[in-house]
């Protein structure tokens, strides 16, 4: 049995197991203790709390609250905001342009910063070789992805395409060398770090984990524009937010009819499942609801070359055309597809696959209309 075939079989079993109780988008994981569920609810309150300049917002920011972007259909879902990232790729080396305010280029400023510098957004780095647009992904099931052992991710890697299937996934690594898995370029090793970093990069809210503000194009913030003492939120708030995010359950896929079941078979047959691995298993955890769980992930958490048409920035080891396989958890909640939202439908997203995804794309395009429709029906059930 191929890796995709084995994973699909496991996936069917996992889906059958979760079929007992329907988990809706935004719901907590099944099996949390009362205390964990309480932390989930309290964490959601922090996640949805609106920051103002008086409570730490900015002076640069993309949103006033986590829930402003992750709002649809519930907290932890998607949103219509698009953010901007920038890096420079020269001679095969990626420069995240920290010295010029990269890689996240905030799109809003507080009134005080606007008065001081006359800017409405962070200046785009002059040395950037690419601009990336980034949609808001759903973050359901991320606590499960967080616990997939590195060894599992490495087991799917085939950087030299030794099996000659045209797919050569490889890991990205954080700046400190650890294997990454979060973010569209898989730079970030853990969910906690992603969440901790997001407070300051997205909202300009400092915390004990990141006690310094973003610079403005690499320059320090002018005196007097951010009077709130750092850190602007405390460790308890950070911990609660992290618990809310990691306890967000993957929504139960909608019940498949005959067409959807055929679509699931097509998904594997044409090679989608080679990268969008249907099922992953978590490792050990103090949280029973997260420990040794099979779940429908539809990702291998690896970088794949998606071809020149999708290429944008580099990040870590990821070259401009390389992206982490997007988990398809909660896909039915999305209204825009691909990392930059350029695709309005799943069909368009599949047809935009290039590079290592070109084979599956071509097989998709060659399908009979009824099979294509079946595949889309399956995807829209996730």
């Amino acid at each position: 049995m191929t890796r995709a075939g084995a994973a699909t079989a496991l996936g069917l079993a996992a889906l059958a197991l979760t079929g007992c109780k329907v988990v809706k988008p935004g719901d907590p994981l099944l099996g949390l203790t009362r205390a964990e569920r309480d932390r989930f609810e309290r964490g959601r309150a922090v996640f949805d709390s609106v920051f103002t300049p008086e409570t730490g917002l900015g002076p640069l920011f993309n949103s006033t609250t986590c829930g402003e972007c992750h709002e649809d259909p519930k907290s932890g879902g998607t949103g219509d905001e698009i953010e901007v990232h920038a890096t420079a790729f020269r001679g095969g080396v990626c420069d995240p342009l920290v010295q010029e305010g990269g890689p996240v280029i905030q799109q809003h400023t507080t009134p005080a910063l606007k008065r001081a510098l006359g800017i409405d957004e962070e200046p785009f780095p002059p040395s950037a070789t690419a601009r990336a647009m980034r949609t808001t992904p759903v973050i359901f099931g991320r606590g499960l992805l967080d616990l997939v052992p590195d060894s599992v991710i490495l087991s799917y890697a085939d950087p030299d395409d030794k099996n000659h299937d045209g797919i050569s996934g490889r890991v990205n690594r954080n700046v400190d060398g650890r294997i990454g898995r979060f973010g569209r370029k898989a730079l970030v090793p853990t969910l906690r770090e992603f969440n901790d970093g997001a407070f300051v990069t997205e909202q300009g809210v400092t915390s004990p984990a990141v006690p310094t503000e973003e610079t403005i194009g690499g320059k320090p913030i002018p005196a007097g524009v951010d009077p709130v003492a750092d850190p602007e939120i405390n460790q308890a708030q950070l911990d609660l937010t992290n618990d809310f995010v990691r306890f967000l359950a993957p929504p139960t896929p909608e019940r498949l009819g005959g067409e959807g079941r055929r679509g699931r078979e097509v998904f594997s047959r044409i090679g989608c499942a080679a990268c969008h691995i249907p099922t992953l298993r978590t490792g050990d955890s103090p949280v029973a609801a997260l420990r040794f769980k099979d779940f429908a992930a539809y990702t291998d958490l690896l970088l794949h070359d998606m071809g020149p048409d999708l290429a944008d920035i580099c990040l870590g080891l990821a070259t401009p055309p390389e992206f982490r396989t997007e988990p398809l958890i909660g896909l039915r909640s999305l209204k825009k597809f691909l990392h930059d939202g350029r695709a309005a439908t799943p069909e368009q997203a599949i047809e935009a696959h290039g590079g290592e995804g070109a084979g599956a794309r071509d097989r998709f395009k060659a399908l009979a209309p009824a099979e294509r429709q079946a595949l889309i029906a399956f995807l829209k059930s996730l």
Partner: protein
Amino acid sequence: MKHGVVLAVTGVLAGSLAGVAQHAAPQPAAPYTYQGTVHSVQAQTGTLELITAVGHALRLVQMRVPIGLRVAGTATGGASVGVRGVKPGDVVRVVCHRAGGSLVADKVEKLEPTP
């Protein structure tokens, strides 16, 4: 409270003293440990700039590497002298202390990817 890029001490701070590094209270003798990617090396001044990260919040940390300090390499077991032993893109772990408002490296170790 605002800090310039050079003095930003955020990022991935390995070791139990991370909390010490993240507060502005003076701790002149306490060691700081940083693990990150070398951004730039200035051999003439013995200056090393590291990129550290918490999520997508990346920071630059600048430090001085004293002349004669050996840079250890974990894979080869070899060592070279001074900042010439590292180059942009290398992943390093640096133990340093604060002196006169600047960071000064006490130990620089070049790391290889693991696993």
